């Protein structure tokens, strides 16, 4: 869990780190706490998983990944976790989750994101997933993104 100072630190950095030589000192000054404390708290949040990582967040379209497919699968509940772990282990899958179905509109319970420079590339990756799922797969689809409508990341209020 986080305290009020951690929360203030999240609000101060969720839009990005200052692009100055001593960014943690700049944040410390803004929050009125010592720079050492800023760095210790960030380190602790990294260790606890509140911060997943620190670095560059690319727009994947702009770096050549123009085909982005959300592959979705209707997988037998008895084996979905075992198969989900194997699909999550594929090197080209960037996100893999089990989620609830919403029948009749949505029969799919396994989601895996794949990316490529073309839809053919995504389709080939989906075929590989299909092969792993075998007889446990009762239906599937690929939902390609055609536009980023928003990509701001987390924003909590100050």
């Amino acid at each position, binding site marked *: 869990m986080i305290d009020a100072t951690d929360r203030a630190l999240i609000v101060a950095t969720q839009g990005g780190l200052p692009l100055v030589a001593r960014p943690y000192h700049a944040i410390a000054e803004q929050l009125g706490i010592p720079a050492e404390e800023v760095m210790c708290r960030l380190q602790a949040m990294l260790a606890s998983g509140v911060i997943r990582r620190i670095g560059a967040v690319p727009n994947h379209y702009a770096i050549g990944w123009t085909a982005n497919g959300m592959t979705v699968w209707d997988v037998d509940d008895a084996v979905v976790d075992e198969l989900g772990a194997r699909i999550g282990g594929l090197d080209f899958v960037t996100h893999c989750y089990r989620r609830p179905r919403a029948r009749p509109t949505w029969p799919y319970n396994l989601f895996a994101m794949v990316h490529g420079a073309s839809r053919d590339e995504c389709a080939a990756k989906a075929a590989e997933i299909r092969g792993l799922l075998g007889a446990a797969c009762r239906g599937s689809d690929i939902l390609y993104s055609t536009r980023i409508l*928003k990509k701001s990341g987390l924003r909590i209020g100050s």
Partner: protein
Amino acid sequence: MPELSPLDRQILATLQGDFPICERPYAEAAGRLGISEDELLTRLQQLLADKVLTRFGPMFQIEEMGGAFVLAALAVPEVRYDEVTAMVNALPQVAHNYRREHALNMWFVLATETKAGMAEAIARIEQETGLPVYAFPKEREFFVEMKLEARA
């Protein structure tokens, strides 16, 4: 799409994580790349301005701080698509939003600081848009690591 230099590609390949926490982190990261601190700061500024990067900084996991994170979708009538996009994007709880090809044609991620906040955000979207929200909270996470190197 802006042309990426070999240095830009190197930055993308090495700086999607592990940014140092120390007094002069850009200097340290620049050292790994064999360039100067100023050069790295200038490139990052340019990559952000060109929208090659959407952000440079920490990525948070709101669930680890007591909040909630839900993938949700709407089936938006085409004639209302822009209007509904504006309504949905206006909520600060909407972290990402993508148009996708399907009857459920708008897919967004809601991130709220509290579990109760999630129900409120969903109710608000339903009320404002008049459309049912399909919520797909994760039941199990098998893998998440969105680190893609530059292509093409």
